[in-house]
C-alpha cells in the first residue's frame, strides 16, 4: 500500500471502500464504537473505569472455552464477565483486602487463566486476534453475533436510560422511591460484559477498556448535559474508529491500537481546548481576543 504524493482526500476515503473487508470493518467497528460509547457515559459517571478493565479482561477464559466447545463466544464471555464481578464482591465482603486490590487480583487471575487455556486447548484460536482485535478479519458468524449483541445493549440502555442515570447519580433516592436498584446494578454489569465482548473484536481484550471509558471521559469535558454527553460520547467513539481504521489501512498500522490512539488524541484535544473545562478554555481565549 503505497502512499502516493498525489493522494487526494477523496481517494484517501474512497479507495479503502473498494475492499469488501474494509467496508465490513468500518461498519462493524462503528457499530461497536456506538455501543461502547453509549455505555461509556454511564461507566465514567459511575466511576466504574476499573470495573470495566476488570470485566473486559476477565472475559478471556470465557471466550477461549466457548470457542473450544463450539458455543457462541459471547455466552462464555458473558458468564465469566459477570462471574468476575460476583467474585470481586464476594472477596471484598469476606476479607479485609481493599476493593481496588481485589479487583486487580481477580481480573489478572482470570486473564492468566485465559492465556493458559489458549496454550493448552488445541484449536484454531488466534491469541493475537483476541488480545489485539481483528476488525479486518471478522467472520460472518461474528458479524451476526455482534449485530445481535449491539442491538440488545442499545435497546436495554435506551429503555432504562433515565433509571440508569438516576442509579449513577443518586442510588439512595432511586431505592427510596421504589426503583429496583439491584436490577439496575446488574443491568449495567450485563451491558458492560456484553459491550466488552463486542468491543474486543475491534481493539482486543487489552485495549477494550479504552472503548468503554475514553469516549465518556471526552464527552464529560465538553458538556454539562447528560443527553449531550451520551451523543458526544457515541460520536467521538465512531469518529475514532473510522480514523483508526483508515490510518491503519494507509500506514499499515495495528488497527486496534490506531483506534484507541485516535480516541486518546480526541480526549487530549478536549482536555486542552474544551470550552469550559479545558486547560486553555477556547471560549475564554476567544472572548479575551474580542
Amino acid at each position, binding site marked *: 500500500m503505497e502512499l502516493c504524493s498525489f493522494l487526494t482526500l477523496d481517494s484517501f476515503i474512497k479507495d479503502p471502500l473498494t475492499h469488501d473487508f474494509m467496508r465490513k470493518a468500518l461498519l462493524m467497528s462503528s457499530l461497536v464504537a456506538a455501543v461502547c460509547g453509549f455505555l461509556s457515559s454511564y461507566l465514567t*459517571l459511575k466511576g466504574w473505569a476499573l470495573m470495566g478493565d476488570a470485566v473486559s479482561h476477565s472475559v478471556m477464559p470465557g471466550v477461549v472455552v466457548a470457542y473450544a466447545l463450539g458455543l457462541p463466544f459471547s455466552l462464555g464471555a458473558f458468564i465469566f464477565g459477570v462471574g468476575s464481578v460476583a467474585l470481586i464482591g464476594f472477596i471484598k*465482603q469476606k476479607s479485609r483486602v481493599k476493593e481496588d486490590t481485589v479487583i486487580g487480583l481477580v481480573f489478572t487471575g482470570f486473564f492468566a487463566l485465559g492465556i493458559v487455556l489458549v496454550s493448552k486447548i488445541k484449536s484454531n484460536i488466534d491469541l493475537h486476534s483476541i488480545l489485539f482485535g481483528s476488525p479486518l478479519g471478522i467472520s460472518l458468524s461474528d458479524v451476526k453475533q455482534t449485530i445481535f449483541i449491539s442491538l440488545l445493549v442499545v435497546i436495554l440502555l435506551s*429503555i432504562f436510560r*433515565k*433509571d440508569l*442515570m*438516576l442509579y*449513577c*447519580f*443518586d*442510588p*439512595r*433516592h*432511586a*431505592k*427510596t*422511591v*421504589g*426503583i429496583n436498584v439491584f436490577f439496575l446494578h446488574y443491568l449495567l454489569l450485563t451491558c458492560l460484559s456484553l459491550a466488552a465482548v463486542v468491543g474486543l473484536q475491534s481493539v482486543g481484550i487489552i485495549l477494550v477498556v479504552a472503548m468503554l471509558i475514553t469516549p465518556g471521559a471526552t464527552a*464529560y469535558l465538553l*458538556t*454539562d*448535559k*447528560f443527553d*449531550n*454527553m451520551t451523543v458526544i460520547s457515541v460520536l467521538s467513539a465512531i469518529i475514532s474508529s473510522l480514523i483508526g481504521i483508515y490510518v491503519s489501512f494507509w500506514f499499515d498500522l495495528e488497527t486496534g491500537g490506531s483506534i484507541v490512539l485516535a480516541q486518546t488524541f480526541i480526549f487530549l484535544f478536549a482536555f486542552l481546548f474544551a470550552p469550559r473545562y479545558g486547560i486553555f478554555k477556547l471560549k475564554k481565549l476567544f472572548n479575551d481576543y474580542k
Partner: protein
Amino acid sequence: METINYQNFRIEAENICVDYNGKVALYDANLRLKPGQICGLVGMNGAGKTTFFNALTGFVNISKGKIRINGESVRSAQKDQTIAYVPQNEGIDSQFPISVWDVVMMGRYGSMNIFRSPRESDVQAVKDAIERVDLTDHLSTPIGNLSGGQRKRTFLARAIAQRASILLLDEPFSGVDIRTEKLISELFIQFKNEGKTILLSTHDMIHVREFCDLVLLINKTVVAYGETSEVFTPENITTTFGGISPDSLFGPES
C-alpha cells in the same frame, strides 16, 4: 387532598438493629413520629444518623426489629412514594452533568411509567416545587454551577415534587447561605402545617431548639428521646457526645 389522621403514627421503628458485615452501626433504636411533627436527630459523626435514615428508606436492611411506615412495610412505603430523602451536600456528585430541572424531575420517577416520560401533571409538580424553593431562574442550570444553598434547595424541591409525607433531611443547614437557611425554615413551618413528618439530622444545636418538637439523641443506640424542652438537656447532650460538654459544642447558653 387526602385527610390526615394526626393520631396514627407515620413512622414506627421498634428495636431496630443495623450491622454492616458484623460491625454494629445501630442497635435497639426506637422512634415514633406522628404527622406534623418535626424531630431532630442528633449525634456524633459515626453515631448512626445516616444509618438510621438508610434503615427508614430501606437502603440498608435491618437485622433485627420492625419498621412500619403509615402502618405498612418499608417496601410499600417505597412504592407509595411516602418517604423523601434529602442528602447532605457532600453526599452528592456535584459535577454530575445534570440540571436543576432534571434533578427535581427525579422526584417524580417513582410514579411514572417505565420510560420515565413526564406527564403534564409531573411537569406541573416540578415547576411548582422549583418555585417553592425559589430556583425558577435556574431551571436549566447544571447543579455544578449552583451554590451550596441552591443545591440544597434543588434537592428539597425534589422531595416536594415527590409529594412525600415523610421527609428525611441529612444536615439540611450545613454549608448553606443565610437566605437558604431562612427559606428552609419557612418551608419547615409550611410542611408542618401540611401535616408532613420531618426527621432531620443536624450538628447545630440552635436549630434543634428552634424547629424541633422532638429530639432523638443517638450514639449507636438511643440515648434519649422526647419533647425537645424535656430531653434536650446539657446532661443528655454530654452523654450523647461522649462526655464533651455542650458548651464547647454550641457556646454558652443564652
